[in-house]
């Protein structure tokens, strides 16, 4: 079996390629990237006028399985991912059971083998039950094949325990991902703290509750000499703190999500629960700082923080509604619309943040189009517009912050491990 992708604009930041080239896939691997490849392939994709890039690696996804199959399953999430051009996801551990031991990880692996349409990697929990009380067996988790540890949704409050976690993670050679939030400061807050929380009469979540914990997490990781990745950076001060720490050569990376640079707290003025997530949509100044951080490289990764919730959990009073928005189907288009169109990033930089950097951070042999790598590829009609409609989303949950918006960029094909998982070949 072989496949030839002809005439597309190939973007491959790992090899500094941005040119009109063909790609030959043989044995599900990239076998050649060159001009006018003359080869007999069993299938041919005409990519003229399209962008051809490494498949997206989304480091922050809530699959909800096992435990909350009413919200999402491995099958539905990976179908949504394929539709959005995503070929690899890192599954967050806040499932039921929590991914804090070998048995749970094996349970999820079984489901993945059966149902996943793309690559699904598992993130283990830092503490048992993500309760912040007792460390998981980090070495055993690493052995079971998890790619990182995180208590996502929660932060480990105890400095002592967090330091211990970083030390164990360093010894095990595993990445720690931090949901940096001081709950003592964010409390029962539901939206960004500021004039809008005041006028809406809602409890606020201050920038302080995020950046103080970002600073602490970096400090402890540095002390332990461990690699740390800060999840969903949303505010100005966090970007500043991370930029400063990176100058000290700390083993530090971070991510933001599309909503943190494309939407502001002004979206909340109608109490739309699809705009409710944690951390919250921030002010214009914060959005500007996130964009600057993306441009200057302080922010390494854009991932979705795909967090599906049922309508029953969203179509209720604002302060009672769940935090979180979906993102797998919209992240690429939002990034094209917000980052490429505005010339904030070029295509190579975008795929650095959506594929190459996540691969490097997680230690994957993916994220590039180098010869011999698994053929994970996305083919995009970059100028094609589409409207985000609830009934056209295939994720089991419809809580997108972008409903009703017109976005640019349609995924024509997603190829994962050499197989087409999105799009149809013309016969």
């Amino acid at each position, binding site marked *: 079996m072989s496949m030839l992708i002809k005439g597309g604009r190939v973007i491959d930041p790992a090899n500094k390629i941005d040119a009109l080239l063909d790609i030959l896939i043989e044995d599900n691997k990239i076998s050649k990237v060159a001009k006018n490849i003359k080869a007999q392939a069993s299938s041919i994709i005409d990519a003229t006028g399209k962008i051809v890039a490494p498949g997206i690696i989304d480091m922050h996804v809530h699959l909800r399985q096992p435990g909350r199959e009413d919200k999402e399953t491995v099958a539905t999430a990976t179908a949504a991912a394929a539709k959005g051009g995503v070929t690899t996801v890192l599954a967050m551990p806040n499932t039921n059971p929590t991914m804090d031991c070998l048995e749970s990880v094996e349970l999820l692996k079984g489901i993945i083998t059966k149902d996943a349409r793309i690559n699904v990697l598992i993130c283990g929990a830092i503490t048992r039950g993500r309760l912040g009380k007792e460390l998981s067996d980090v070495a055993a988790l690493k052995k079971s094949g998890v790619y990182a540890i995180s208590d996502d949704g929660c932060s480990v409050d105890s400095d002592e325990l967090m330091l211990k976690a970083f030390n164990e993670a360093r010894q095990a050679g595993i990445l720690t991902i931090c949901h940096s939030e001081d709950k003592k400061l964010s409390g029962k807050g539901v939206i960004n703290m500021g004039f809008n929380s*005041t006028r809406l009469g809602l409890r606020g979540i201050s920038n302080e509750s995020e950046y103080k914990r970002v600073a602490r997490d970096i400090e402890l990781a540095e002390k332990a000499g461990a690699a740390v990745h800060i999840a969903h950076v949303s505010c100005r001060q966090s970007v500043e703190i991370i930029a400063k720490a990176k100058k000290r050569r700390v083993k530090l990376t971070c991510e933001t999500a599309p909503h943190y640079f494309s939407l502001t707290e002004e979206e909340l003025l109608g*109490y739309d629960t699809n705009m409710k997530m944690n951390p919250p949509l921030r002010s214009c100044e914060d959005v500007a700082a996130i964009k600057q951080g993306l441009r200057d490289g302080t922010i390494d990764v854009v991932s979705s923080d795909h967090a599906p919730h049922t309508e029953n959990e969203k179509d209720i009073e604002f302060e009672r509604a769940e935090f979180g928005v979906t993102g797998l189907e919209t992240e690429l288009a939002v990034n094209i619309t917000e980052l490429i169109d505005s010339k904030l990033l070029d295509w190579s930089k975008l795929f650095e943040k959506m594929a190459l950097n996540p691969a490097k951070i997680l230690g994957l042999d993916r994220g590039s189009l180098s010869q011999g790598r698994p053929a994970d590829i996305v083919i995009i009609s970059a100028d094609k517009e589409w409207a985000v409609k609830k009934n056209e989303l295939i994720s089991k949950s419809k809580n997108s912050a972008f409903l009703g918006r017109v976005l640019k960029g349609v995924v024509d094909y997603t190829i994962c491990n050499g197989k087409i998982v999105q799009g149809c070949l013309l016969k």
Partner: protein
Amino acid sequence: MSWTKKDLLGLEYLTKEEIELILDTADSFKEVSTREIKKVPALRGKTAVNLFYEPSTRTRVSFEVAAKRLSADVINIATETSSVRKGETLIDTGRNIQALKADIIIMRHNCSGAANMLARALDISVVNAGDGWHEHPTQALLDIFTLKEKLGKIKGLNITIVGDIAHSRVARSNIWGLTKLGANVTVCAPEMLLPVAIEKTGAKTSSNIDEALKDADAVNVLRMQFERDEGAAFPEQLDYFKRFGITGERLARAKKDIIVMHPGPINRGIEMSSEVADGANSVILEQVTNGIAVRMAVLFLVSQAREIKT
């Protein structure tokens, strides 16, 4: 001008002209309550539903009296005894009331934004009778109506609002309404009870009640809810009265004719002394009377808007 909104959710969402229209309409309805037969047929054949998720006597009764003086049929739903207790969602409850062919839902809810959400989900009118810390538009309208009645105008007046501004929907609605009509508003509270960036509404802030009273034409004294579960972020009762309580002594240093208002129920000896509550400057009971006229105006206008639309 004519009224076009099917709902009344808050004064932030109204123009100066719309607020003035409500006040003018209230002015013409006020006389109804002085008649021997206190009833006009303006809403005959209409059904208003009081849907109260928070305990309230005065607001609920005031709306009920207002609706009845307009000849509407009124149904009271106490959520403690309804299917809400069985876990029905707010939107489902609203849709059921709509299916009963009611015309107006008057809702009090402990969550900010609940009225906005219900109004979006329904075709019938929703009147916000207080949602969380967000807005209590009819309270502010009756406060403004009373002020206008007493002082002849709103523009240029100095109005001080004192109390727990952070957790007060009455304060928010008053700030929006008064600033739109051109008053100078000062909010006065211990710093921990001033909400973030409140000055962006146009209101000035102060934590010194004597200063805030100095040039005030009126002071609106909010109820202090010491039963609120906000932990350490609350002052001690006695300390509060000492620093912010409205007493005869404090009033003596203010403008002679300063008007004293309170949305009720009063905590005597906590936010104001009895001598002030019952004194010559107090208009607290007139506020209650005016509340009926203002609510009659609101119920009349929102139901009129729906008729124009359909």
